[in-house]
């Protein structure tokens, strides 16, 4: 814990806090269709797209229509991505002449990018050509992020509208999120990254002959543009297999700082946008506070754990698996941020984290990616927990539970529970199946509790739409490609469906004006309750499994044993 570590942490938090309202206000203007600073430039393009697509952006949709449009768009996305991969050797922009991708891997990858997971069972630089990377993956990096934001905005409309039937227009939300938000931000960030040394080129890989005489092939490509959106859109799918640990993805401590900031920027800003939509900024800040508390607690535990003398290796702190240019603090900060935010980009080997730090990363996934979370997804996941918290604790003030003046009834409880528990179901069942059949553990490299954690992490990462991996278990095989694809799909759409259903039913409700007898959903008490409910739901569901993984691994390591 050196002084410059602390300076960086406070700088990070300070800048995050500063950009939250700025981005939040901007997004609020964008999604309410009002003029903003980019209207003059992008407005004509936006209108052109609507015209070409035959979309009337002001035409409001009921929740069923909104959900229908969203699912159609995403299913189509999976189909296109699948087709591109299955035919890439016949398509242009493939200078390395990579062969067609096998079906299981192609499906896994297609689902992975459409669900904003960016789980990569392949290594990008040795599997996919430029066309698939750009026209397939990068496009999904944008639109999957835009989909997440659209769902959140729709939910926020549902929660804040009075006796309304509609929750917005999906196409307009999708286009606006992409054009006004993701594209300009990515462009700026890509330029910063190029300045820091990230390549952006269409040229073929470069052959080099270093002093040791062994010829190397140095992969290149349009890297900076993909890195920008993979961070900003909390996608996490790296251009290279090593992701942000690779010097071409993340060359300097400054690029590292920017990349970490980019992960939290939009999710944090959306809390403010939400506050503006509810016409009570405290609603947004309270959720921001709950997220920040969970983030800082996780980071503190991880950092502390990584700095402890290791009883097995005998080293003073844990530099194994970390890049020297980042060091312990920046690696742990990155690992906490990326697992909190459903991003999945990594700048260090998570497999080499200490059991506690790895356990925190795993727990972050298990809690449902609501600590800032994926763009839009984190916030709507958090709002599901808010609904559950209001229902559980709201009864205790002696009124039937209400949120923003609207009653939480059986319908909302049912869908909230489905949304909150769908990933849990995927993880537990997937893990149990993997534990039970030979295919599940055939590719497992490690024995002992760490081996268990690696499998656990794989399912958690998929269901939480994170995409980072503890690795250690070979996942490019039929069993993992298919099971994880299912987990990713359900982890995304078994939440989005219920969330939109809640948006629809809440939109139609009457609003009771607040009074001193109303259950408060702002302030420290509520933030504390929210944190407690998130921890309790996550902990109660996964405590037995965590015991068999990180917890026992930590205890065993303390005793100086390894497997």
């Amino acid at each position: 814990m050196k002084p410059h570590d602390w300076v960086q942490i406070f700088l990070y938090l300070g800048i995050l806090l500063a950009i939250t309202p700025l981005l939040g206000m901007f997004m609020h203007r964008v999604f309410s269709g009002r003029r903003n600073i980019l209207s003059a430039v992008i407005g004509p393009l936006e209108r052109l797209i609507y015209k070409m697509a035959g979309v009337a952006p002001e035409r409001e949709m009921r929740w069923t229509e909104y959900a229908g449009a969203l699912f159609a768009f995403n299913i189509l996305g999976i189909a296109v991505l699948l087709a591109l991969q299955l035919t890439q050797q016949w398509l242009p922009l493939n200078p390395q002449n990579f062969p067609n991708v096998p079906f299981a891997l192609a499906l896994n990858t297609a689902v992975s990018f459409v669900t904003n997971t960016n789980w990569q069972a392949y290594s990008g630089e040795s599997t996919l050509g430029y066309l698939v990377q750009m026209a397939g993956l990068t496009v999904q990096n944008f639109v999957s992020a835009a989909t997440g934001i659209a769902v959140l905005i729709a939910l926020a409309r549902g929660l804040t509208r009075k006796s309304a039937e509609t929750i917005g227009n999906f196409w307009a939300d999708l286009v606006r999120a992409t054009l006004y938000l993701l594209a300009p931000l990515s462009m700026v960030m890509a330029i910063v990254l190029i300045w820091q040394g990230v390549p952006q080129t269409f040229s073929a890989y470069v052959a080099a002959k270093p002093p040791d005489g062994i010829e190397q092939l140095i992969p290149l490509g349009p890297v900076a543009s993909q890195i920008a959106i993979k961070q900003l859109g909390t996608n996490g799918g790296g251009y290279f297999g090593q992701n942000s640990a690779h010097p071409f993805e993340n060359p300097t401590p400054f690029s590292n700082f920017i990349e970490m900031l980019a992960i939290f920027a939009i999710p944090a800003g959306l809390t403010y946008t939400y506050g503006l939509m509810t016409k009570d900024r405290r609603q947004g800040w309270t959720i921001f506070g709950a997220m920040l508390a969970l983030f800082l607690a996780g980071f503190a535990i991880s950092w502390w754990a990584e700095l402890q003398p290791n009883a097995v290796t005998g080293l003073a702190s844990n530099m194994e698996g970390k890049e020297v240019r980042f060091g312990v603090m920046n690696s742990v900060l990155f690992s906490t941020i990326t697992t909190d935010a459903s991003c999945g980009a990594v700048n260090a080997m998570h497999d080499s984290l200490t059991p506690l730090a790895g356990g925190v990363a795993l727990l972050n996934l298990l809690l449902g990616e609501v600590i800032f979370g994926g763009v839009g997804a984190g916030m709507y996941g958090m709002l599901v927990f808010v609904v559950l918290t209001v229902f559980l604790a709201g009864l205790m003030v002696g009124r039937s539970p209400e949120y923003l003046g609207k009653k939480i009834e059986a319908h909302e409880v049912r869908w909230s529970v489905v949304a909150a528990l769908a990933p849990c179901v995927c993880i537990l069942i997937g893990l149990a199946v993997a534990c039970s059949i030979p295919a599940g553990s055939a590719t497992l490299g490690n024995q002992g509790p760490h081996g268990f954690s690696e499998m656990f992490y794989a399912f958690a990462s998929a269901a939480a739409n994170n995409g980072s991996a503890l690795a250690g278990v070979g996942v490019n095989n039929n069993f993992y490609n298919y099971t994880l694809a299912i987990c990713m799909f359900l982890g995304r759409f078994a939440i989005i469906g219920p969330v939109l259903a809640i948006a629809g039913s809440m939109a139609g409700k009457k609003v009771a004006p607040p009074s001193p007898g109303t259950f408060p959903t702002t302030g420290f008490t509520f933030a504390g309750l929210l944190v407690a409910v998130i921890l309790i739901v996550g902990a109660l569901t996964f405590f037995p499994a965590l015991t068999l993984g990180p917890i026992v691994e930590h205890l065993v390591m303390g005793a100086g044993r390894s497997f």
Partner: protein
Amino acid sequence: MSTLKSSSHSQSAFADAALLKLAAVDALKKLDPRAQLRNPVMFVVFLGAIVTTAVCFRSPSGFNLQITVWLWFTVFFANFAEALAEGRGKAQAASLRRMRTTTMARRLRGSTEDIVVAGDLHKGDLVVCEAGDIIPADGDVVEGIATVDESAITGESAPVIRESGGDHSAVTGGTRVISDRIVILVTNEPGNAFLDRMIAMVESASRQRTPNEIALGILLVSLTLVFVLAVGTLPALAHFSEKLAGQAGAVNVSLVVLVSLLVCLIPTTIGGLLSAIGISGIDRLIQRNVLATSGRAVEAAGDIDVLLLDKTGTITMGNRQAAAFMPAPGVEEKELAVAAHLASMADETPEGRSIVVLAKERFNLRAHDISERHVTWIPFSAHSRMSGVDMEGGLIRWRKGAADSMRRWVEENGGSYPSEVQALVEKVSASGGTPLVVAEQRRVLGVVQLKDVVKGGIRERFAQLRKMGIRTVMITGDNPMTAAAIAVEAGVDDFMAEATPEDKLARIREEQAKGHLVAMTGDGTNDAPALAHADVGVAMSTGTQAAREAGNMVDLDSNPTKLIEVVEIGKQLLMTRGALTTFSIANDVAKYFAIIPAMFLGLYATIPGERGPLAALDLMHLHSPESAILSAVIFNALIIIALIPLALRGVQYRAMGAVAVLRRNVMVYGLGGVIVPFIGIKLIDLLLAGLGLA
């Protein structure tokens, strides 16, 4: 037979041995799988108990047997809680039913009468009741006037007058005519009478689950499913870990242990007590002599944030009362008081009597002081609007009455009406009071101020309600000036002056459009639309049949103030549900720390068979893996029994703002729910170890 009153006074159901015995029997009857299926959480326990019982037949170890016995106890205790809550209602229903069965009716067909059983009466029949008859069915008096003893329904011993026309025409089946003869038009089909609905209500047989109960039920079932999944997948994960550790048999995931873990984790505490909480909420209303037509109404009462209260009888005493003597210039206050006192002796109205009382209080005046003088009393009449007294053969003539009548009287007698007195009169009117002028022939003595007397403690009550976020609106027929004065004095948030029943209805609609939930009381036929429209409409049982049909609650005491208690009971019901749910979930933390280390104790042990690293999770240092699991299961069963009184009584209720209530309940039931089981399980473990049971 004052059924409701007497049984409600036998307070704590817990102390009543007969009820306990009855509940125990009913609890056994509820072991019927069909009854269990209604409560999914407890049904899982029920299935678990069956599974462990089966295991016991195959491998009857002491541990297996004890777990099985305690699982059955868990099911039994939950049944018992429900049976106990139902028990009181059943006892009340039984005595009500006895009242109904034997009644005969004298049915009127044209001009002839025939005798039929009360149950054969239909809507539209006419029946005759004379002194001594029990009224056979609900109806309206269409002819005659009678005094009726309604104590069987209301517990109120004073008989009431029922007459045709107006707002006092409704009679209830089961009550008794004490004097005179009335003809009643039957207004209900058999089986649908007020008494029948009462019986159905208290029996809770027809109890529908309320919206909030359904929502909570969904949450509890979902939690149960998650835990089924978490426990169901555990053997696969555990056996795989054994393999990774290379220690076959290091974990204990036997069926009995898994069932124990599952039962401990699923929310059995709230699952077992949920229906008891709902029933007891209705029961607490009945104890206060309020009948709700549905559990839904009780729940809605907790959400009320606007109360429409009638001024008269709720906020103020029934009538205006003399508050001050205001003498005219040159008149002593005592002289005024003496004149007012005597002039009011012949005034039998409550206002007149209150003047006598005030004079007594202020100057210790007694009527017998004047008994020797030659006195002629002039009684109050609505026509003259004054009363008075002539003494000494007409030498002294004192009168008191309405200001304008008195002015005329004084001027007729050749006196003059001083402007100072007129000023006093106007001042009293302006302050919301009623001025009465007192004069001695030509000389005006002064003014008596009558005003509404606000009930003691009502102001504090409204302040409490405000803290709870409930706004009070006073409804009165008074003019706006008078109404405003009383509103300020009583501390209501708003008032409606010169209100008609239509105004009330409009106000309810307006409040509801703004998102408020409104409660009101009413008794007249013209209150019926408003009662039906209000979220909680409490009809007075003295009110008309129409009013009683329209409201969703009936107050047998006809005490409008009770609306406030109704709201409190509704809130308490919801709070109890929330508190026990929180407690139930919080309990799981300790149970995990008891059972998980017990299951995985040997895993990754350095020396096979010894305690492994996960022993570190055994925070309670329990005696053995068996006693740890057993203690958790026993705690889980006993906590249901321990919380039955809380479920029946409701959590402690205080009028506080939502934030304060929330903090308090989170501390008590959330934090308490985490800590209590650690202590409880440890104590049970010590006991088990001491007794050598595990």
